[in-house]
Structures are given as structure tokens and as C-alpha cells.
């Protein structure tokens, strides 16, 4: 029995190439699509602008680790029996006909920017495996570690900028470089951006060390290594990783990219005081400065019990909810609004996603368990048409009934939106060719009306 989601590659390629990057309607082919991206990256607004659509320059992935409940966030079932519908009510959004959870009032105001996917489906219900699947588009394999989105982006966007190409706030979960190797591993900030003493790991000078001493250290180091190079009669004195580290550590601009204290209080407040919101703000600062991929890791969504406490209140007796969903709501909505205000939203793809959904029936502890058969995610910006819902789950949020989308399909779509040819072949360490995406089906409605 063939996997219903793995469309034969030949057919998909052929058809997709008609619409790749959603440029088709205007008669732009694959070759153009690739060129177009480079044109855009070159900073000159050309064909892409006229088309009203071009590959996204950056991506912010808000990773909701543990598997957020679709039934309490984006896909509520008010008509379902009590044991399914859960404690929260839906509310209307700014877009007629689209409802989301009452815990997401700020997000509701941004609904015109949102593409809500309600028909993600996957067979993998274990955190580690599902994490891998959702972050790479490949089901995990014992023989090969596939690279995550950020690693592929970092691998494809080789530029000479100061800042790392793939940043994770604060620490990576799964989703590393896989077979692409250590040069595209995520750069982890460490720490908590909401804390006043937040510092990126190893970016600040050690106490007692100043710029003059760093310069001296570099000079001394060069003299050691130059002596070595002379012996080898090679001309490679500077080590590229050293030079990057040195430039990053001594560049005021690079450091200020990570410095949230430079944001006006009015902006900081909008994102909410908690770690997630301030991480979103940091992500915005980074994409604004050209970082092509930032992931914000938000843990705690594995809500096997106490939905009200964990998702809404945050702690027992809280007067104002500071649980997972309200915290997400503030940060996510502020991020979209802020990006739009700065004219960055069109070129920044924002994705909020976890590894699976939760069981339709509440369990005895008032929580929900793992449920990959159907779950939700939301995308915005980066050319994604807003104000729409894609796919649907059944009456109890148990299975997809319309337009099932596999993580593999999602991956093809994300890469396409980011201007990376999904059929591009990457090479494993031992030279095996592996395409960026294999067999995924492009989700058209995420690319074009």
C-alpha cells in the first residue's frame, strides 16, 4: 500500500513547476523563479515586486514544543460533546467566518495576516520522532539525520554577513544540521531574553578583557599561526571560523542585534513581559538585520493534565492568564504587527508549529494526550495569503476531512516560499544525493489565492 501522501515525484515536479513559488499565473518558469530569488536577495526590487510576490528573505519559526492542543487554540469544536470541546470558547476574529480560541484575542485582531492550517496530519505520535519529522519534512531514519529547515537555509544562503545564518533562541531542540554538518548547526543564544541580565552565550568579553586586548590576542595568535603557515609554505593564515568569531565579538552592530535594551519600552511591552514574547522581539531584531532563519523555542506544550492551569492561568489563582496560550498570543500578535509596521512582513515568513496535536477526548486528569492524526499550525507573512483557513478536521477534531497536509507537504511549501528549490539535491557526508524535499505536495493555497 502506497503512502497516500507521497505523490509520485515525476508528476509532482511537473505540475509544481507550473506553479512554483506561485509565480505561474504570471508566466514565470522555474529558471526565472531561481533567478528571481537571487535578484531579490541582491537587494534590487525587480520582477519580484511587480509580481507582488517573491521568495521570503527570512523565516521565523515559533516552535511550540510538546505538541499544542489544536482544540484549545486554532480549531475549537464548540458543537462537540462536553468531553471533547474542552474548557474554552471560540471568538470571532477580524476576518468574517474565522474563529479561534478566546485565549487568542490579540491574534484574532491579526487574522487578516494569518493562514490557519487545520488539517496537518502525521503518523508519528512520539515527541522525538515527530519533532524530527516536523522540523525536517522527513520521517526520521536510523541511517541518516536529515537537516532541519534552518540548516538547509543556512546551507543555501552563504553570505559573508557578520551574524550567524541560523539562530536559535534559546537552545535548539531537535532540528540541527543533520548530514549537512557542523558549519550549519544553529547558533544558540542561551539565556532568557526577558531577563534584564540577558546575554548571548559567549558573545560578551570576559571581565577584564577589552577591545585592545582582543585585538592583541588576535595579533599574537596570528603570529603563532603565521609561523606555522610559513613552515608549511601555505598562505592560509586566518581560520574562517576564528575570523567570524572575532568579528562577531568585536562588532558593535552585531552585538546590538542581540541587545533588547535598545528597543523602546513601548515596543518591549507590546510583546509581553515573558520569555516567549521577548524572544519574538529578538527574532525580529535579527531578521531585520539580515539573519535568514531564526527559531524561537517555546517549551511546555505537552499538556497531559490541567488544561486551564497550563494553557490559560500559568499558575493557580492567577488573575490575569499568563499561561502558554495568552503568552503566545501577546508575542505572536505583536511580532506580526511589528513586522508589518516595519514593512518586513512580506519578506519574513512566520510559522507557529508544534510536533502534533492533542487527543479529542479529555483524559481523566483534565488534559489531552498526543494526537498526530490531525493538528493545526499557523503561518503568516513571506507571501502567504492571509485571512484564510486551510483544510478542516472532523466534528471532534479527530481526523482531517478536507485537504490533509503531511509534514512533508508542509516542508515542500515552506522551502518553496523561502525560495529554495525543493528538488535541489544535497549531498550527505558520504556523497549520497538527498533532495531538499522528497515527494511532498505543494500546498497551493499557502502560496497563492
Amino acid at each position, binding site marked *: 500500500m502506497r503512502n497516500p501522501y507521497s505523490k509520485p*515525484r515525476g*508528476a509532482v515536479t511537473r505540475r509544481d513547476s507550473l506553479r512554483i513559488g506561485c509565480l505561474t499565473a504570471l508566466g514565470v518558469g522555474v529558471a526565472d523563479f531561481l533567478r528571481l530569488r537571487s535578484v531579490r536577495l541582491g537587494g534590487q526590487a525587480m520582477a519580484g515586486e511587480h509580481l507582488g510576490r517573491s521568495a521570503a528573505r527570512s523565516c521565523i519559526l515559533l516552535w511550540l514544543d510538546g505538541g499544542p492542543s489544536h482544540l484549545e487554540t486554532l480549531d475549537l469544536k464548540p458543537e462537540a460533546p462536553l468531553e471533547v470541546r474542552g474548557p474554552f470558547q471560540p471568538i470571532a476574529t477580524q476576518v468574517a467566518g474565522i474563529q479561534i480560541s478566546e485565549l487568542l484575542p490579540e491574534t484574532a485582531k491579526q487574522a487578516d495576516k494569518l493562514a490557519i492550517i487545520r488539517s496537518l496530519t502525521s503518523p508519528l505520535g512520539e515527541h522525538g520522532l515527530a519533532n524530527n519529522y516536523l522540523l525536517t519534512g522527513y520521517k526520521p531514519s536510523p541511517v541518516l539525520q536529515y537537516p532541519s529547515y534552518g540548516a538547509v537555509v543556512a546551507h543555501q544562503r552563504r553570505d559573508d554577513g557578520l551574524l550567524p545564518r541560523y539562530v536559535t533562541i534559546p537552545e535548539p531542540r531537535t532540528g540541527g544540521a543533520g548530514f549537512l554538518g*557542523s558549519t550549519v548547526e544553529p547558533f544558540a543564544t542561551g539565556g532568557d531574553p526577558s531577563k534584564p541580565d540577558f546575554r548571548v552565550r*559567549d558573545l560578551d568579553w*570576559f571581565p577584564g578583557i577589552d577591545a585592545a586586548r582582543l585585538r592583541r590576542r588576535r595579533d*599574537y595568535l596570528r603570529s603563532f599561526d603565521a609561523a606555522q603557515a610559513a613552515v608549511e609554505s601555505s598562505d592560509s593564515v586566518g581560520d574562517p*571560523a576564528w575570523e567570524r568569531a572575532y568579528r562577531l565579538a568585536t562588532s558593535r552592530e552585531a552585538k546590538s542585534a542581540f541587545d533588547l535594551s535598545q528597543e523602546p519600552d513601548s515596543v518591549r511591552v507590546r510583546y509581553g513581559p515573558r520569555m516567549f514574547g521577548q524572544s519574538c522581539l529578538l527574532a525580529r531584531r535579527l531578521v531585520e538585520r539580515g539573519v535568514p532563519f531564526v527559531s524561537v523555542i517555546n517549551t511546555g506544550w505537552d499538556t497531559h493534565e490541567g488544561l486551564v492551569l497550563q494553557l490559560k492561568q500559568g499558575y493557580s489563582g492567577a488573575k490575569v492568564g499568563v499561561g502558554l496560550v495568552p503568552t503566545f498570543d501577546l508575542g505572536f500578535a505583536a511580532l506580526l504587527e511589528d513586522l508589518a509596521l516595519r514593512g518586513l512582513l512580506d519578506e519574513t515568513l512566520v510559522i507557529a508549529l508544534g510536533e502534533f496535536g492533542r487527543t479529542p477526548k479529555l483524559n481523566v486528569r483534565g488534559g489531552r494526550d498526543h494526537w498526530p492524526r490531525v493538528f493545526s499550525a499557523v503561518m503568516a507573512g513571506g507571501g502567504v495569503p492571509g485571512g484564510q483557513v486551510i483544510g478542516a478536521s472532523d466534528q471532534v477534531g479527530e481526523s482531517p476531512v478536507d485537504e490533509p497536509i503531511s509534514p512533508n507537504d508542509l516542508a515542500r511549501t515552506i522551502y518553496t516560499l523561502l525560495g529554495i528549490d525543493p528538488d535541489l539535491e544535497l549531498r550527505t557526508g558520504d556523497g549520497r544525493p538527498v533532495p531538499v524535499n522528497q515527494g511532498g505536495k505543494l500546498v497551493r493555497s499557502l502560496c497563492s489565492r
Partner: protein
Amino acid sequence: MIGLVWFGLMLLAAEPERPIDFDTEIVPVLTRSGCNAGACHGAAAGRGGLHLSLLGADPAADHEAIAHAFEGRRINWVHPRKSLLLRKPTGHLDHGGGMLLDADSPGAERIVRWIQEGALRTSPRRLSAFEVSPRRARLATIPAEVTLEATARFDEGRPEDVTAWTIFQSADPSAVTIGDDHRARIHRRGQHLILARFLHRVEPMVLVVPWAAPDAARSDAARTDAARTDAATSERVPVDDSDSSPEEVIDRHVMRLLDELRIPASPPATDTEWLRRVTLDLTGRLPDPTFVALFLQTDGGSRREKRERMVDRLLSSDAFVDFWTLRFSRLLQMHSLPNEQQGLAAYAGWLRSGISGGTGWDEMARQLLTATGDSHVIGPANFGRMAADPRAHAELVGRFFLGMRLGCANCHNHPLDKWTQDDYHGLAAIFARLERGRIVELSARGSVTNLRTGEPAVPRIPGLRDLPADGDHREAVFQWAVTGPNNYFARATVNRLWRAMFGRGLIEPPDDLRDTNPATHPELLEWLAADFAKHRFQIRHALRGIALSDTYARSATPLDNNGPDDQFYSHALRRPLDPEVLVDAIADVTGVAETFGDGVYSRAVAVIDPLFPAPTLDTLGRCNRAAACEETLVRNATLPARLHLLNSALINAKLASDLGRLHLRIAAGCTTEEIVNEFYLHGLSRRATVDERSAWLEELEVTDRDERRRRLEDFVWSLLNSRQFAENH
């Protein structure tokens, strides 16, 4: 010569008189055209509705898919040329894979004839022999061209030329390209590999072009020899190694290939270079400066005797045991299990005492493969617990004992090796009944499904024989992998030991041993494996031979014309220190220990568990369980690692410490010269040259005491980050 003529006549007999045989004549056309490759119809799910077995491993299923599936719509019986099977790859119909076959080509013609004959698969022929020519050829210079040929025999028939249906693949297309005319064009000097595939057989072919033209001093005979490219002349005469010591054998084989390639060998390293290298390789530590001084001064006996004494001393040290326990723990993928430290403690303790006491690795291997009982007490019983299930267990057996990647054969027959899906699942079946809880034992039930058949897999010694479904066959695995005639374990292990000492295995990568991935020095590897087995699988014996060879003692400084060589040992390769070794070395030089887990460990090499929290080691790239740690030598070179070395406490706090070596020396009133000398000796295991010393004195000798301290700290910092320090060379 007569053979060649006969061969030539045979080529003329293009297509046979008898009916076309699907298995041996149609499948190769499909394979040659790429139809059944992993990226096309050979993928597990097929492509475009057509699924073929990967590289034609299952002709019966392929025939079914082509001739019968979809009511036979892929075949047009009336107009064979209009069959979908041909219209698609010849570009007449839209085809996702593009145009792969010329409509007039012999391949297309053969398919047409096969369809005309009924598109049958009757009494298939079996491939009984496949040979390539040349197997090893030496060419005088570049650019050069060689014609590649392949012959096959089916059942008991005569050899047939199958060159046109053989896929010749260059291992390094930047060195060798292969045209449609089956001619290999060599663009780079050196030793190059081509793989020739026909049906399920893959044969390696080696092409050699010496690095330099024969010099005038060489005889004309040598020149003539170099110009000949036929296989027969480049087969090399075996050397008699029977009465030689390991180091003599190593040097003989390495020099022979260097001579053949005309790569000059760098001169020997100095005593201090050698001492630093061998101490780091055998013990994971820098040589103690008092050792250095002693080694340089003692004049008891020859250089050879001095080095023997030093190697024996290192091999019997505690540091050797610590370091090789760590190394083997990585190969065994040892790690703690959730909420359970005792298993790993017992396992690591067993490994350590085995290495310390010199237990032969045959005995160690037997215990790893067969131990049962309470894994908190019986160390080797944890071997199978490092694997989540029987298949992972089988793969770990493959990786550790065979140095092979059996995992490929999970979903399809190994495309480059002899292993089949039946082999893979059969080996897994042997471990299927193993309980992997704290108490490791064989239970009555347990099986794995053979993905090929969908049935419970039959226990099987890979490549050899099926075993009864019941019974404990783990001892049979031991005999097959370790003591059997194939010497699998010995070969995999000496290759790893060699790699640990040279930075490169005789076969790379060390977990991908197979006939189609030949060693750079095949006879040497076989000799070392046999010698290892003969000496009761003692790693000290194997390491001693390597450490005492002239090959190992060569300078790391390349000559003008051997610099690009990174596989023939014309000079030593520079290798970054392992993260654990680097951290310990920084601690030793600065005189301030780096501790882990609130002082649980005071040396990084003691942190066996890759899951034990050690952010510094993680940042510097320590091997974690998820990665196969053998694959890359690029470490310490990431941006986070560099920032860590630049800004973190790892080095900075140790330099600033009042109890550190530097500040103690400053407080004791040592001169700048004394301090420079001491750090050169501790960090680089040598004395500063006159030029270096005077340059540093000029830079560091300032009157302001604080400024002098800062400059000295910066001096030590840059020493600790220099390539001379952070690499073994």
C-alpha cells in the same frame, strides 16, 4: 595476446540468437538508464505509479510491474515501439525523469525485441561471474585515458561482453570522469577508484598515476613499465612479510606505494615532535615537561631503544587506560539510560578494567555479544541495551564488530555490498528475544518482521546460512564476526586503531568497510588484521607496532611536492585535538583543573557518558550518541566553539586565577623569559627558538606590572588557541 584477439571477436557477436532474458538483459538496461535508482522508480514508494526494485535486486517483481501491473498497459503487444515502457524514457511521452534512452539505441532495440518475443520471463539465467578490466592500472601521466571493460558469465556459459550494460562510476569525479564510450579520463594524479556495477555485482577498479614523472636516474625499464596500462602488468608481486616486525611491515608497504606513486616522503619528525604526537595519541595528554627533558637528555641506547622504552611506558600508564576507555565507549555508543546510572557505571567499569588488564578483544567481544544477567552488575550485558530494538542491536553489531553499515539493508539490499534484506533482518532476529530491561535475558518470544517478505525473519548469519528459529545463536554471531576466517572484527578494529594514530584509516570511513570501498593499502590492512588476531587481539600490541614505525614518525611538514597527499602517509597529518583532550590540555597548561558536575569529574576524558551535562564539551563538539562520531574530523571549528574559546571562562578564568601557573610564576618573580620558556615547554612540548624568544621578550617585557601581566595572559591565550597547540602534528 591470443586472449585479447578472442576477446575482440567476442565483442562482434552483439546480440544473441536465443530469446532475450529479462533478468540479465533487460534489467541491466533499466539500471544503466537509471530507471530503478533510489531517486526514481527504485524508491521505496516508486515514482509515477511504477515501482521497481532498487537497482534491479528483485527481477521477478520488476517483471510483474512492467509486464502485468495495470492490466499490462505498460506494454503494447501489437506495436512494441509504442509501449509506455519505451515511449516514456525515450521522450515521446511526458516523463518526470526526462529522456533517458535513445529510441534507436541498442538498449531500446533490445527492449523492443524482448516485447516482440512476448515480454516473458522464462527460466532466468543466473550471473555466475563478473569481471572487470583493468582491475588496477598504472598510467604514466595526465591527462590519460583507459578503456573500461566488463565481462560476465551466466550459468555455465561463455564469458560475454557486458561493458555496454555496466555502470562505471568514478568515486571522485574531479579526478576521473567516465564517458559514454566507457573510457575513463584521468585528470588528477594519484590513486583513484572506479566502481563497476552489473546486476547485483559491484567490482572496484583502481587507476594510478604517479605524482611525478620518472626522474632521469630511473632506468628505461621503469619508464616502460609506467607506460603500460594493461591489468596484468600492474598486478603487484606480493611481498613476503612473514619474518618481519609489525613496524617493518608497515614501513615496507607504505614506502612501496609511495614509490609507485613517486611521492617523496617527508623526513623524520624531531624527537620532541614525535614525543608530543605519540603521547597525545596514546594517552590523550601532553607530555609532561620533565618527560620531555628526560627523553631529550638520556643517552642510554639508540634512538630506537629510547622510543621503544617511551612507547612501552605510555602503553602501561593509567592515562592510556582512561583515554582508550573513552575511545571505545564512543565506538560502543555507551550512554546512560533514563533514571539509571548504574548500568553505565558497570559497563564503563568493565571496559576500563578490560583495557587496563589487557584482556584480549576477542574475549571482550564474546562478552559483549553474549553476556546476560543483571546489567547493573555485569557490564557487557549493557551492550544490547544501548540499542532500542533488535534492528538497532544488529546495526550496532555491524558498526562496532564489522565496521559496516548494515542499516542500508533494512529497506533494500545493500546497494554496494553483499548484504541482503534477509541478512539484515536475520541478524536482527538473533537478538529479537533479548529482554533489554535491567535484567538482560533471553525470553521465550520475540521476532522481527522481514520487511521484504512481511513474515517473521529467519535467524541468519549474514551471507552464510539460516539458523533454526529457536535457540540462542549469539555465540554463532561471535564466531562469524570475531574468530571466523573473514577476520571482520580484527580488520575493523585495526583500521580504527590505525586511524586513531594517523588521523586517517586505511579504509575511510572506518564504519563503511566493504569490498567496494578498498583500502589504500589492502595487503597491509590484511596483515595487520591477521597479526592482531594472532596476538590475542591485544590493542597494545597493534598500537605499539604503529607507534614504532618510521611511517608514524614522519614530520608533519610537507615537502614541496607531497603537500596535497592526505592518504599515503608521505607526511604526518595535522589533526585537531578531541574536545576532551583539548580541555584537559588547557587545564594542564594553565595549572587550573576544569571540573564537571560540581567536581564529580576533574578531567574531561573521564566523562564517559555523553549525556552527562558538560556544556563546554558540547560547545566544543564532543561526540554525542546521536551522531556517528567517527565520520568527521572537523571539530572545534564552529562559530560557537570559537566564541567559547575567545570569551568564556574556560581559558580566561584559568589565566586570571591566582592559583594558576601564570600568576604563580609572576608572583614568584620569574623573568619573562622563564615564563615564555615554561609555557612553550608545557603547551608545545618544545623550547622556543631564539627568534621566537626574542620576539616575545620584546613584546612582553614592559615596565608597567599590570600591563606586563595582561600581555602575558594574552600570550598564553594565543598559545592555547594556536594551531600548534590545538592540533596534533
